[in-house]
């Protein structure tokens, strides 16, 4: 019951971030929305780990957090102009 409610709230969170991703107006807004979606997806993967009782999803979440962080920082440095 609680887990279902959490899934619904997380779905709404992804929805609002996607709206910001589509709306813009600058590329930094889109990057910020991407960063937030990365974090929400990490939390979602951890939630899936507990609701399916599979430990492996925790490792997936960890790797996803690392790669998402690296990607966001690299794109931000690129937009700044000094990679």
């Amino acid at each position, binding site marked *: 019951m609680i887990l279902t409610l959490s899934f619904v709230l997380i779905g709404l969170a992804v929805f609002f971030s996607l709206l910001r991703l589509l709306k813009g107006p600058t590329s930094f807004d889109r990057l910020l929305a991407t960063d937030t979606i990365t*974090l929400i997806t990490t939390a979602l993967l951890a939630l899936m780990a507990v609701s399916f009782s599979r430990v492996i999803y925790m490792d997936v979440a960890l790797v996803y957090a690392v790669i998402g962080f690296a990607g966001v920082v690299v794109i931000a440095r690129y937009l*700044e102009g000094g990679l």
Partner: protein
Amino acid sequence: MAIAGNILILIGSLFLFLGSLGIFRMPDVYNRLQAGTKATTLGAMSLILGIGFLNNEFLVKSIVLIIFIVLTNPVSSSTIARASHKSGVPLTDKSIIDVCRDDIRKEEV
């Protein structure tokens, strides 16, 4: 333990939702970063800690994940803020002061 875990998960997903609502509602990129960073960091921390409480098998890994999120999430949002400030994204009209912009003007002159 299970009840505490459920409460933490619910609080966490509520904060994730509020954070992305803040991203949608705030007027400029810096205020969006404010809402986005803080609320989603605490939301993810609380949700993942709740998962650790719910199933003790996951506790150690969830603590590693929490430490990683606390260390990296402020860094990425600071990088975005710096990049947008250097590219000259303006602050919203409601803003009352910008020390950094004056500095940049002095350097250019």
